[in-house]
């Protein structure tokens, strides 16, 4: 739930009044958790998906009595996919509202600006952004990541292309955004280390209506696999469409957005979606027998009964959103709301059973997502938001 400034001031005044009144009543005050999603703006699809999960989790936590009788109150500031507004929002959450901890931002560009600010105000932070440099246990001891890093994502995709599909000549393509260019920069050396030959490497303007020259170039360079890294559905669908028009039968392996429902709507033929393998996460995928884990099934049931829309987003975003407040709540139930205590608890966290993944931290490693749970899936196996594992994928 979001608050207007007026509401925030009003509730602040109320809190002040009750604190003066009687300590016993003060103990029932809600626990304020800050939340910095990008709900609007160009990079908002992730934030919107995550938001659905978060809202559900907070409702469930509060319905079950909250944290030691205290309700969890989410204070939201939409960053609009803009690092400037993210900084303003973070300042308000920590210095204006004085939240106990912050979840987010969900886009790397915003996190890069917010992490130092939150460190200065001694606020514990959990975020799901992928850029590698966003966690640094020495510099930012209170910042944790409950999602994979770029290295993990790229590593899984590269492993699949080189070791499972056994393709040696690879084309890596992205758009001209920060994420795209950073990814290409990171993954090309990783591929080379694996012994692959990067025959094509390019950043293409996502607004360009025609990617055929690029694919023709890849083809004439002898590429055996295409690896696109972009969150732009239009751009990705053009690549898939062009490959199909050319009748070029090479696998497309890359960003999770390749599997989003919106892509299906942008494809010329549904068959084109075959031979496309995006990243995804084992806990929310169908196993060899076509079944989801009990945990995930239970989650899907809860989504259905809460009537949460899934068709236009990715299940793992909702799952990630769902897990995050629950993890924070568990920490607070165990050790209270003091920042140092929360950080201490998280530093010892072992296999927190998230729907999205089993999160563990150590004092030296603040990247909580396990390597083995990053997997590749078949894009066109999308059903109920979940996918089948890609063929040849070792379980």
């Amino acid at each position, binding site marked *: 739930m979001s608050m207007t400034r007026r509401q925030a001031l009003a509730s602040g005044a109320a809190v002040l009044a009750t604190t003066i009144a009687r300590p016993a009543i003060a103990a029932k005050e809600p626990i304020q958790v800050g939340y910095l999603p990008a709900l*609007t*703006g*160009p990079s*908002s*699809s992730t934030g919107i998906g995550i938001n659905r999960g978060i809202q559900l989790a907070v409702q469930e936590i509060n319905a079950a009595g909250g944290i030691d009788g205290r309700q969890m109150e989410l204070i939201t500031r939409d960053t609009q996919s803009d690092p400037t507004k993210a900084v303003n929002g973070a300042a308000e959450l920590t210095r204006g509202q004085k939240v106990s901890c912050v979840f987010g931002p969900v886009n790397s560009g915003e996190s890069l600006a917010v992490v130092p600010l939150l460190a200065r105000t001694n606020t514990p932070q959990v975020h799901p952004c992928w850029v590698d440099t966003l966690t640094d246990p020495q510099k930012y001891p209170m910042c944790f990541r409950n999602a994979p890093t770029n290295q993990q994502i790229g590593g899984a995709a590269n492993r699949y292309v080189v070791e499972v599909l056994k393709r040696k000549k690879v084309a890596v393509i992205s*758009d*001209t955004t920060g994420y795209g*260019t950073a990814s290409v920069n990171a993954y090309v050396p990783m591929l080379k280390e694996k012994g692959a030959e990067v025959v094509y490497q*390019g*950043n*293409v*303007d*996502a*607004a*360009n*209506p*025609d990617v*055929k*020259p*690029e694919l*023709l*170039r890849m083809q004439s360079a002898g590429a055996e696999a295409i690896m696109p890294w972009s969150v*732009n*559905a*239009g751009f990705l669908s053009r690549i898939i469409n062009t490959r199909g*028009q050319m009748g070029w039968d090479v696998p497309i392996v890359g960003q999770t957005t390749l599997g989003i429902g*919106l892509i299906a*709507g*942008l494809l*010329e033929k549904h068959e084109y979606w075959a031979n496309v393998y995006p990243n995804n996460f084992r806990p929310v995928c169908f196993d060899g027998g076509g079944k989801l884990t009990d945990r995930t099934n239970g989650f899907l049931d809860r989504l259905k009964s809460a009537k949460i829309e899934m068709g236009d987003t990715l299940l793992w975003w909702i799952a990630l959103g769902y897990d995050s407040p629950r993890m924070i709540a568990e920490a607070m139930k165990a050790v209270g709301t003091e920042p140092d205590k929360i950080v201490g608890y998280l530093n010892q966290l072992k296999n927190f059973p998230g729907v999205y993944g089993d999160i563990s931290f150590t004092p030296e490693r603040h990247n909580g997502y396990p390597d083995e749970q990053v997997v590749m899936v078949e894009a066109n196996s999308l059903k109920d938001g979940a996918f089948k594992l890609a063929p040849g994928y070792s379980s």
Partner: protein
Amino acid sequence: MVQSIILTGVAIGCVYALIAITYNVMFSASRVFSFTAGTLGMLGGVFGSLFISRMGLPVAIGFLLALAGGAIFGVVTEIVAVRPVLKSLEQHLYVLSTLALALMVQQFTAIEFSTEQQPFPRLLDLPRVDFDQLFWLPMLACAFVIVGLELLYRHTLIGHAFLAIAEDNYAARALGLPERGLRMASFAIAGGIGALAGFAGGEMLLAFFANAPTLTFYGFVPVALGGMGNNRGAVVAGLLLGLFQQAANFLVGGIFASVAVFTVFIIFLLARPDGLVGSAVGRRV
């Protein structure tokens, strides 16, 4: 490779040329450049997606509604952003009023329609071929508009009236021509042309609010190069721009392609501020 560059270059060049014509028609009627030309192109695509894909209307109806929507927005531009500032002595106000209106519509579209690219429907139910409707629809639209405008200006009374207003405003009024009505009609036509550009180019560009700033810029380049108010120059320049852009994309890649286009444009403009075909400057003193 080359075939692809030429096809896409010419097709997208036709879209740019149509936006340039939109600018020109509005300029002819009011001596004002409106920032809303690119927004009209965006609306053409968005309306097409909205009416046909989302609301399920037949393609022909969706097409007519999209054009009507563009025409309406053109008239709104004239009433809200152009007419009030024409009376004022301060020349540059129109830049600001049309900019404000364009921004408002873009933001509204982003928030209410979508911040992502949305699918644009396949307009004609034909199989996909190399020389696909994706490419020849914009070319057809461009040819249609050029011929149509030519016929309008040369062979109809109302077209002559448009030319008169453009040529010499005062004389036309002295002759009793209804200046205001003609100007509104011009803006309506311009609105229709802009929407047509976005609609015909929709399968290429998809329905996306951020097409507006792109088309505002790339649609203006042919105007600047071809000479203000010069439609033929705009078409030639538009095609050249489309081809150059695709070639640059191919040769130097995505990031530097747009840098290349901007740089060449700015250098060219500095060398020839009045475009390839200069136009007479009015008396200043």
